[in-house]
């Protein structure tokens, strides 16, 4: 299907199903139960899942295939966001120009930065990208305040020109939309004690993620993708084989920069504000972690990694003491009290602790990331089914 082989088609359909049914999958707990606080099926977080999924997929095209670890990719996301908000301020709150601008501007930006940074490899490349991103952040936060609104973040205002739109007499800023369909529109579907939210903004982002995912599969399976893997495997040999790795690298860098730009554009499409914080080095680090956590160089891994980190960031950080008391309420007091005290280290403001521990555990025990965990589980299950089959170390094809 669509020029994919059978296995990839399966993978693609799997992701498609995940995305379509996300409102159900993410809201497994009934609303009135205490576990409902672990539900993640609300528009903001669902949008974040797919947007950061796009970001991580794009990053993986660079890092996963070529092994070049960019520590400044958040800069492209940030630049995309700024470009998007400016389009919404100047032209129209229809998100189409914003998205186009986000991708184009991020592409140009990554072309320039990539051209310079790719003169070096290894950690020197990483530090160069980091340096550029940190400079972008520092300048956006301070000196460039007239363009970026600095600390506050660039947002829409009533006084914006929006030249492609009819004059706005009402006292409200028009909402971001896609040819009239507002990003925040949607409906709830209640089934018994469950409520499932279907949000237009989410599905729009999801369509983009599907396209992004599809492109990424095609890149992985193309001669171009093979060359990128060759760069990672043995860049010297590439040269002696008559291949100039620089254009390949630069193309990969720009493609992943454009992915980041698209993610940034979508972020402002669903929530029209671009803050400098999203260019900070920790944001760049986050996408590295997402990719590694999910499984570097795999197709699905980065999406899973992005989902996992965003889930922890948004759900665990919002649990507080009373939530814990409610969760552990079924336990006798003498157990509940110390348990809540300990658990408090890991939720609310301690969510970073959970994240840190999770990184360590996954890196220590699952070097291939979450996807390796899934595969191991799968292997375990299938081995139980057919014990007579000889087990052999599988060559790890890029998944």
């Amino acid at each position, binding site marked *: 299907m669509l020029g994919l082989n059978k296995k990839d088609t399966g993978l693609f359909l799997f992701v498609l199903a995940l995305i379509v049914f996300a409102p159900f999958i993410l809201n497994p707990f009934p609303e009135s139960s205490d576990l409902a606080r672990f539900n993640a099926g609300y528009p903001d977080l669902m949008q974040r899942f797919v947007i950061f999924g796009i970001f991580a997929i794009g990053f993986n095209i660079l890092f996963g295939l070529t*092994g070049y670890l960019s520590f400044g990719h958040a800069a492209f996301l940030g630049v995309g966001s700024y470009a998007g908000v400016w389009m919404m301020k100047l032209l129209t709150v229809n998100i189409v120009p914003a998205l186009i601008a986000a991708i184009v501007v991020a592409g140009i930006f990554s072309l320039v930065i990539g051209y310079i940074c790719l003169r070096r490899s*290894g*950690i020197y490349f990483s530090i*160069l990208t980091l*340096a*550029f991103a940190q400079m972008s952040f*520092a300048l956006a936060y301070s000196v460039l305040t007239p363009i970026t609104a600095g600390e506050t973040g660039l947002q829409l205002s009533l006084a914006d020109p929006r030249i492609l739109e009819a004059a706005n007499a009402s006292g409200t800023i028009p909402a971001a939309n896609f040819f009239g369909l507002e990003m925040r529109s949607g409906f709830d579907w209640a089934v018994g004690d469950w409520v499932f939210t279907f949000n237009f903004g989410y599905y729009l982002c999801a369509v983009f993620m599907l396209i992004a995912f599809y492109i990424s599969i095609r890149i992985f399976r193309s001669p171009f993708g093979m060359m990128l893997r060759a760069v990672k495997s043995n860049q010297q040999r590439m040269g002696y084989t008559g291949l100039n790795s620089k254009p390949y690298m630069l193309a990969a860098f720009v493609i992943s920069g454009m992915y980041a730009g698209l993610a940034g554009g979508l972020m402002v499409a669903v929530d029209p504000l671009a803050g400098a914080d999203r260019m900070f080095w920790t944001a760049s680090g986050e996408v590295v972690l997402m990719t590694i956590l999910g499984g570097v160089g795999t197709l699905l891994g980065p999406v899973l990694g992005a989902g996992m980190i965003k889930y922890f960031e948004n759900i665990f950080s919002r649990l507080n003491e009373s939530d814990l008391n409610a969760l552990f309420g079924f336990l006798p007091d003498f157990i509940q009290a110390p348990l809540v005290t300990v658990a408090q*280290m890991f939720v609310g403001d301690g969510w970073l602790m959970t994240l840190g521990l999770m990184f360590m555990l996954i890196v*220590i025990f699952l070097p291939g990331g979450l996807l390796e965990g899934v595969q191991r589980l799968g292997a375990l299950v299938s081995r139980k089914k057919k014990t007579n089959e000889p087990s052999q170390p599988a060559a790890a094809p890029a998944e």
Partner: protein
Amino acid sequence: MDAIILQILNGLDKGSAYALIALGLTLIFGTLGVVNFAHGALFMLGAFCAVTLNALFTLSHQVIDPSRTDFLGNPLRVEIPYLVEWFGEATGNAIIDWSVPLSILIAIPVMAAIGLAMERGLIKHFYKRPHADQILVTFGLAIVLQQVVKYFYGANPIPMPAPDAFVGTYDFGVLLGFDPFSIMYPYWRLVYFLFSLVIIAAVFAFLRYTTFGMVVRAGMADRETVGLLGINIGRRFTIMFAIAAIVAGLAGVMYTPIVAPNYNMGMNFLVLSFVVVVVGGMGSLPGAVLAGFMLGILESFASMAAVIDIVPGINQVIIYLVAIVVLLVRPRGLMGRKGVMED
């Protein structure tokens, strides 16, 4: 002129901290080949050794002072440190006053223990893993260490005064023939600079003049060969890790009176010190020290009002700008060797 001298002084001071952290990072990288993102956290832990010792020294019991009241109108409880009670006002307060320098004594064993535990318990298993994994696991560790410290000490900076003897400033202006008050420099910062020189010298001397150091240097140059000689290089590397932890910790201890420590201070230094290490050249100890001081001084110059007026925002980006220029002109940093960390 006086302004320039002043900024050189400032830069040396800032550079001291960069150099010490970068030195430890390079030791770990050079000997073990591990990219340690938890190194900033070690610096922070060192600083909290000082905080902890100070807290221990000021352990107090409460005495009710009926003549005064607290904010709720109850009689005021006054805290009297046990040290004051045991040793008398003068001695007790003197011990508390000197808690930062005294912390060096506890920081050395504590940091060594932390370093050993880290290397044996965690890092050891990552020698053969890709650098990305090393970065991730040490980054995770750094977050955990930070959160633990935050859990016990809160998020706000905790003031740690220098001993009274070092409070105040030295007027270099008068010494050098400028106007009074033109080049004022705090005593403690001079102490910090000298202290870092001593530490740097000690590390270099140790590597240069001891057998241990020679083996380690050989190991840094070519790990496999030394391994073939039948020397247990692994154990020596463990000790190197502990030494790097001690260097970072001591840098942290002595830094507390300069900038009040908080749980996040390590992260602030981490990125900068990586830039320092790379600018110096991965794996080069003199490079790390040189780059540390160089970037410190450049940063200081860039923060002069006259410079900011010409290039707005230069103070925000100077370090990164220098890093970019150095790396483009000298591909392996100032003193880096070929082939280190390039794939």
